[in-house]
């Protein structure tokens, strides 16, 4: 294959991948009427002003509901992924670095957990949470999101590859406790893996749709995806929501894109782990 053919293929697909996002960006800078009346993939003369007006409307509509949704998503995904990563790392580390009875059994259960789709759990979780009257609360979305069997799987592979047994022996001889060794020495060696686990759990929670859809009734508790979904399904009754949905979609994907760009150094080295083994 020639160099120009390779560049052509990649060029064409770059358009495919970026055009929708570009469309979202340019359309966010238009008023409702301008969406259909102006050039679709370009800005208008007063784009900056309209964009700011749209943003203002987005954050003030319905008593600032959208800001609340963003905050909820940050809480569900940010705090959830942070705690989830620590929990998964500890478990994967123990499975990789210690020998104990039932180790293989636990790992096999975790592996089957990877294959059980999270959406199949949404309904039974709803039934259980409604028994303890916790549906339509933040806990109903937050608590189940903490569990990431795939995170344990990655953590185990990474701990086995990047934390040398000799180092743990040395730490033991120095009188360092097992748990202190984990938090001071091992987590540093596992850092790229931990960032990878965090990011992917963050994305999984941020994107999760079924669980909040089935658990939450109160709009104030919605994550941003469910909120935009709700607005989008009301467009036919309230047409002014259309431009809010478009600006809101743009604002809601920015945190993830920024997080991925900022942490790229870590996850691009950590991503291979699942595939190599």
């Amino acid at each position: 294959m020639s160099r120009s053919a390779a560049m052509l293929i990649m060029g064409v697909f770059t358009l495919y991948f970026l055009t929708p996002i570009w469309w979202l960006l340019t359309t966010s800078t238009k008023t409702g009427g301008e969406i259909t009346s102006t050039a679709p993939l370009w800005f208008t003369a007063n784009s900056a002003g309209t964009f700011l007006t749209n943003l203002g409307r987005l954050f003030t509509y319905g008593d600032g509901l959208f800001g609340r949704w963003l905050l909820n998503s940050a809480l569900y995904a940010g705090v959830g992924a942070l705690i989830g990563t620590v929990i998964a790392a500890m478990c994967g580390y123990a499975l990789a670095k210690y020998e104990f009875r039932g180790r293989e059994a636990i790992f096999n259960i975790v592996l089957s957990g990877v294959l059980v789709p999270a959406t199949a759990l949404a309904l039974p979780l709803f039934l259980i949470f409604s028994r303890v009257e916790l549906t339509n609360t933040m806990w109903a979305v937050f608590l189940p999101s903490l569990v990431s069997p795939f995170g344990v799987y990655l953590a185990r592979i990474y701990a086995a590859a990047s934390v040398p047994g000799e180092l743990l022996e040395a730490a033991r001889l120095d009188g360092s406790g097992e748990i202190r060794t984990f938090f001071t020495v091992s987590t540093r060696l596992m850092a790229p893996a931990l960032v990878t686990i965090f990011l992917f759990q963050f994305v999984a929670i941020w994107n999760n749709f079924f669980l909040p859809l089935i658990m939450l009734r109160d709009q104030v508790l919605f994550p941003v995806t469910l909120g935009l979904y709700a607005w989008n399904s009301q467009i036919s009754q309230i047409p002014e929501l259309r431009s809010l949905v478009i600006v809101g979609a743009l604002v809601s994907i920015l945190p993830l894109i920024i997080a991925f760009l900022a942490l790229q150094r870590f996850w691009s080295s950590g991503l291979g782990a699942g595939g190599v083994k």
Partner: protein
Amino acid sequence: MSVTSTPAEVPKAAPVVRKNRSSGAQRRAVTVFIAPFAILFLAFYAIPIVYAVVQSLLTVEREGTFGKPRQVFGGFVQYEQVFQNTAFWESVGRVLLFGAVQVPVMLGLALLFALLLDSPLLRGKKFFRLAFFAPYAVPGVIAAIMWGFLYSPSLSPFGAVTSNVDFLGGNLVLWAIANIVTWVYVGYNMLIIYSSLLAIPTEIYEAARLDGASNIQIAWRIKIPLVIPAIILTAVFSIIGTLQLLAEPQTLRSFSSAINSTFTPNLAVYTTASVPNYNLAAAFSVVLALATFILSFVFLKSTQRKVTQ
């Protein structure tokens, strides 16, 4: 390497006692490390599965038409209903057809891009890597909203195409969804395959080149066989994802009347649960989880055998 074995140089002054204490400390540490995950896994994975199975074996009985409903054991009544429910099986057939086309196309593209990124042919690799991966940051709901606008005849910037081709009509809407899913996940799968390509030692290629192998031969004979495990991993996750389709079709329903309330198995679960008929919905969930598990497990096992042969 075994970690619990006696350290090579135990100080002579503190022989047996110290060893016992340290292995006891290790046991305690293992408990501390595993307990949080184990408890959460039990509460939010294992128990819900058991609970779903239990619920699926119950049925609601009423004394008279307007009597108080109560749940009684119904055996496989719900499962009989599942198997007689043509809408549910149509939805299963629909996602299987979807997966049979979309997963190979997506992974084929991901493999092609990964090979190109790994080849000496390309400039600006960092840019392409990021550009192709960017859609992964777009949640399924948002992607469906964006593409919903792009597909719609009145709002699309490609009005010339969308006013002639009805992407949201009954014939094409499944493939319109397939395009959205492909758009989101190609870059992610590309990166997984690409990182596994990066792990191959380059000496292998040099040896092949000395033997006169071309770039295409190296890709076909060396690179692809070596990244098969990564491809299998991405395939399993794609199969799981396909059977779980929900966010994209559910969101597109406000753009397209061709998507009914039982378009995918998970939509059927949601619709049935909203009736509310929890017992039947639980039975749907159990069948779906079991089918997903079996399908990905069989796929894993069958490909593993092929690789080792």
